[in-house]
Every structure is written in structure tokens, then in C-alpha cells.
């Protein structure tokens, strides 16, 4: 009978594989890669040969590696723009799909398709052959007009959206489903009550729907940033791999590159999360 209550020990037993795995394949590698980033690492036939460099790898990036810095800056701008766009698009599509339409399932199937088939090489091929922006839009006069007045923030943003429509939509599949699931969990009686009180659709959206979705918006922001940062589409990942196997730079330098990338992603996550919390506070005060 006594063994019935030894539950906590059994709990550890179930979680043990994860703890071992976390230490060996995640925690230790993180610190090891930080450690390596301060070394010149060369792989020899006998083993790994490392020379302590101090912060030289990092200094070298900031002083010499203009290409990487430019890539990081591009990535930073892109992800800061794309993430809110993807989340907003996903939210709008989810709101549409949440309507009681008979063909809802069909559209859901289509909207989720990209999640299944968008591997790096497939997306690369599509971008390479220019299938990822809507060509008919590009041939319209107004697009031509827009490109003339490049340089203004708003216009650049619109051009960016047009050029990336398909990619932005393709990256929103999971987010759409997360929003739909959340929408369906909102208590229908609240809507009824609001309608009886004469609230407009607009008011209902801001006062009921949106606040109910806040936690999922946060989840989707994080999900989008993470997925965006691991797609092969972003050139940084390739750049790091290139330096990993390049004899002059090697693992040490590549580790420094990847740590810098890690820091940028953390900054992006913190920035977007705090922006969102700011927005959340503002809307709930309305």
C-alpha cells in the first residue's frame, strides 16, 4: 500500500529521459558553444585543437564581417515587420474561417497546406522561379507607381507586403489554426449577451474577441519568430554553416556567429513581447 504514495519519485522516472537529454544535448551544448566562441577551433585527425582567443572572434565580426552584420540587420528588420504581419493575417483569416460557412473545412485544408509542404528547398525553388509574389499584382499600374516612390516607410512596407504575400501567408498556417481553436473556446453566451445589449460587431471584436485571444496572440508571436528564425530562407543559417566548415574560420568563429544570432533572436522576442504587452494594456483600457 505504501508504494501507492511514492508518486513523486515515479514522476522523476518518467521525466528522467528528458533531464538527461536536456543536459547532454541542450544545456551542455549551449555552454560549450559559448565557450568555443572564444577559441580558434581546428579539427585535426587526432581530435579538436583549440586556441584561446578571448573576444577576438566577436571583435572580428564587428570589425570585419560586414556581410554578416548586414545580414543580421536585414533579418532583424524583416522579422520585426513580418511577425506582426503574419500574426495579424492569421488572426483575420481565423476570424473569417470561424464564421459558420459550410465550406469552412475545405478552406482550412487549403490554408494549412503550406505547413505540410514548405521545406526550405521547396521554398527556395519557388522563390528562385519567382512564384512567390503575385505576378498579376506586379503588372498593375499602381505597383509601378509605388516602386517609383520607394524610400517612404509606408510605401516600402506596402511593396514588401506585395512582394512577399505568398510567403507571409504560407508561414501563417499553424497560427491560423491556433487562433481558430481559441476562438471556438470563447463562451458563446458572452456574445449573445453583448448582442442583446446592442453592441456592434466592431465593439464585440475589441471588447470580447480580442481580449480573449490575447494569450494566443502571444503564443503565435513566439511561434512565428521561432519558425521564421529556423527556416532555411533566412541566409544567416547558411552563412553560419558555411563558416563552420571553412578552414580559416572554423567552429570557433561559427559559434560566435551563432551566439550573436541567438542574442538577436532573444532581443526580437523581448521587443515584440513587450510591444504586445503595451498594446494589450492600451486596448484593455479602451
Amino acid at each position, binding site marked *: 500500500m505504501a508504494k*501507492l504514495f511514492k508518486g513523486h519519485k515515479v514522476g522523476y522516472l*518518467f521525466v528522467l*529521459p528528458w533531464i538527461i537529454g536536456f543536459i547532454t544535448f541542450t544545456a551542455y551544448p549551449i555552454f560549450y558553444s559559448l565557450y568555443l566562441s572564444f577559441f580558434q577551433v581546428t579539427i585535426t585527425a587526432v581530435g579538436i585543437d583549440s586556441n584561446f582567443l578571448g573576444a577576438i572572434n566577436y571583435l572580428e565580426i564587428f570589425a570585419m564581417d560586414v556581410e554578416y552584420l548586414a545580414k543580421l540587420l536585414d533579418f532583424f528588420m524583416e522579422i520585426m515587420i513580418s511577425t506582426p504581419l503574419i500574426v495579424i493575417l492569421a488572426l483575420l483569416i481565423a476570424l473569417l474561417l470561424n464564421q459558420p460557412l459550410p465550406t469552412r473545412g475545405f478552406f482550412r485544408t487549403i490554408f494549412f497546406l503550406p505547413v505540410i509542404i514548405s521545406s526550405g528547398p*521547396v521554398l527556395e525553388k519557388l522563390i528562385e*522561379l519567382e512564384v512567390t509574389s503575385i505576378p498579376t499584382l506586379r503588372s498593375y499600374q499602381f505597383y509601378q507607381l509605388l516602386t517609383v516612390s520607394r524610400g517612404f516607410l509606408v510605401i516600402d512596407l506596402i511593396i514588401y507586403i506585395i512582394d512577399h504575400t505568398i510567403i507571409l501567408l504560407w508561414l501563417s498556417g499553424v497560427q491560423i*489554426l491556433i487562433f481558430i*481553436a481559441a476562438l471556438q473556446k470563447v463562451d458563446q453566451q458572452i456574445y449573445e449577451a453583448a448582442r442583446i445589449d446592442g453592441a456592434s460587431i466592431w465593439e464585440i471584436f475589441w471588447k470580447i474577441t480580442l481580449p480573449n485571444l490575447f*494569450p494566443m496572440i502571444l503564443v503565435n508571436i513566439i511561434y512565428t519568430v521561432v519558425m521564421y528564425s*529556423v527556416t532555411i530562407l533566412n541566409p544567416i543559417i547558411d552563412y553560419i554553416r558555411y563558416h563552420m566548415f571553412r578552414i580559416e574560420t572554423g567552429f570557433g568563429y561559427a559559434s560566435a556567429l*551563432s551566439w550573436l544570432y541567438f542574442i538577436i533572436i532573444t532581443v526580437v522576442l523581448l521587443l515584440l513581447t513587450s510591444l504586445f504587452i503595451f498594446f494589450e494594456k492600451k486596448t484593455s483600457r479602451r
Partner: protein
Amino acid sequence: MGFSLRKLKRIFLGMSGTDGFFIKLLIYAVLVGIGFVFLYPLLYMLATSFKDLEDLLNASVHWIPTKYYSGNYERALVVLNFWQMLLQTLFVTLIPAGVQTLVASFIGYGFARYEFKGKRVLLILVLTTFVIPPPVLIIPRYILFNSLGILDSIAAYVLPAVLGQGLNSAIFILIFYQTFKTLPKALEEAAQLDGAGHFKIFFKIAIPMAASAYLVTFLFSFVWYWNETYLAAIYFGNNLTTLPLQLQRFVDSYNRLFVTQGGIAETNLNEGIEMAGTLLTIIPLLVVYFIMQRWFVEGVDRTGITGE
């Protein structure tokens, strides 16, 4: 607002905001429009892959090729080394996916059904592993795998999966955590009184009750492993290949196979062949998706990611 406007609004927008004729039409128009944007690349691939050189060069042929032409596919099958690579891809995706599913359920069960010291901290750590970008981990893991002698083999995928550190493991652990949390505690207590051990309860009661979570996890895991090329390229070297990796090398392989025979236009790589190759690498996934579509789409809902 005026009275007439309100009346007009009622006719077109409907009373509750969803049953108006105008609103419905608008929603459909937008959905069809967005749907087209989603499907456009696929349709384009499909159309282009059946075009022969003449159709490709003919600007008046937009979508439907003038004749049935399967030459692109014949070439692409050879370039990808399709059937052999398909088997190999299935080998390096199904096994890690299966292992990952089983292990994630085991770990998720532990988190969901037991109380122990440090559980909260561990759960938060599980979630943070999701945010760590793979490039940070890949160099030390590469060195580690190298010293373990498991580089260039499927073990480089399976070993982390066995220990709950596979591709997107955090999501799957979370899915099982949510699923197992909803099981009634009484069931377990009854089984315990009957003398069933903890593992017996897990295998005999918990697993059968979470069948849908298993299926969803396995499917997503399979798809994500299939589409993963960054890790695959580094871990597997030249020893193992997957179809997406073959697609990455498509141009090189093509040139090696065909172009050396002479430089005539007919043997040069064209868009049609490339699109055929691209489609071939995703067809297996498309087949799985359309058969199991319900599980993918409802999966996100069903498994309660949105539960808390």
C-alpha cells in the same frame, strides 16, 4: 446614425452580423482570394511541370499545356533518384518520428500525472528549449556526435529523440502534457487499487486513451523531420540523403547527368523539369496530408495547445 441606414444595414449585414447576404458574399470572396494565393504556387508547379520546351517558351500558354507531356517527370525521377531516395527519406523520418512520439508521451505523462519537486522549473525549461535557435546547438552537437561516432547515420536523429530533444520536442511534450492532464484521476486510482504498477497504467490505460494525440504528434513529427534539411545536411554528410536535400542539389545533379552529353537546348535544365522535381519531393507529403487531413487540421485544436 439615421434610421434608414440602420435598416439598410440590417438587410445587408444581417442581425447578428454573420447571416447577412452581403457579408457572406464578402467573406467568400476574401476566402477564395486568399485560397488562390495559397494554391497559386502549387497550381503553377503543376501546370509548368507538364509543359514541354515549346510550351514553356510560348508566352501564350499560361496555364494549360497544349499537349500531355511527361518528359519532365521522367527526367526529374532520374535526377532525384526518386524511388531509392523515397525509401531512404522514409527511413530517416519515420523512425525518429516514431521514437519522438513515444518518448514525448512518456515525458508528457510524467509532467501531467505526477507532482514532484522542481516540476514547474522543468516545465519552463522544456518550453525554453523551443526558442533556442538550432545553429547555437548544432556545432557542439556535431562535435559530440562525432566523438560518439554517430555522425553520418540515422542515430544522429534518433539519439536526441530518445532523450526528448528531437525536432520541436517541446511542442510534442506540451501536447501530451495537455492530453494526459485531462484524463480522470479516478481511473488511475482504480487501476492502482487493482494492483497495476505505474508503467502498467501508462501502457494499458493512458496510451489507449490518448490515441488521437499519438497520431497527431506522429504526423507532425514526420512532416517536420521530412522538411528538415539544415540538420540533415550537416549530420548526415554524404552518407544519407532525403528528397528535399536531393532537391537542393537538383541543378548540380542534373548538369552532371545530362548536360555533359552536349549543349543542345533540349538537354538543358528548364523550369518544367525543376517544377516536376519540386513536386515529386512533396507528393508523398501531399498524399499523407490529404488522407490524414482531418488529423492535421483538427490536431492543433484537439490537443489543447490552446488549453491554457
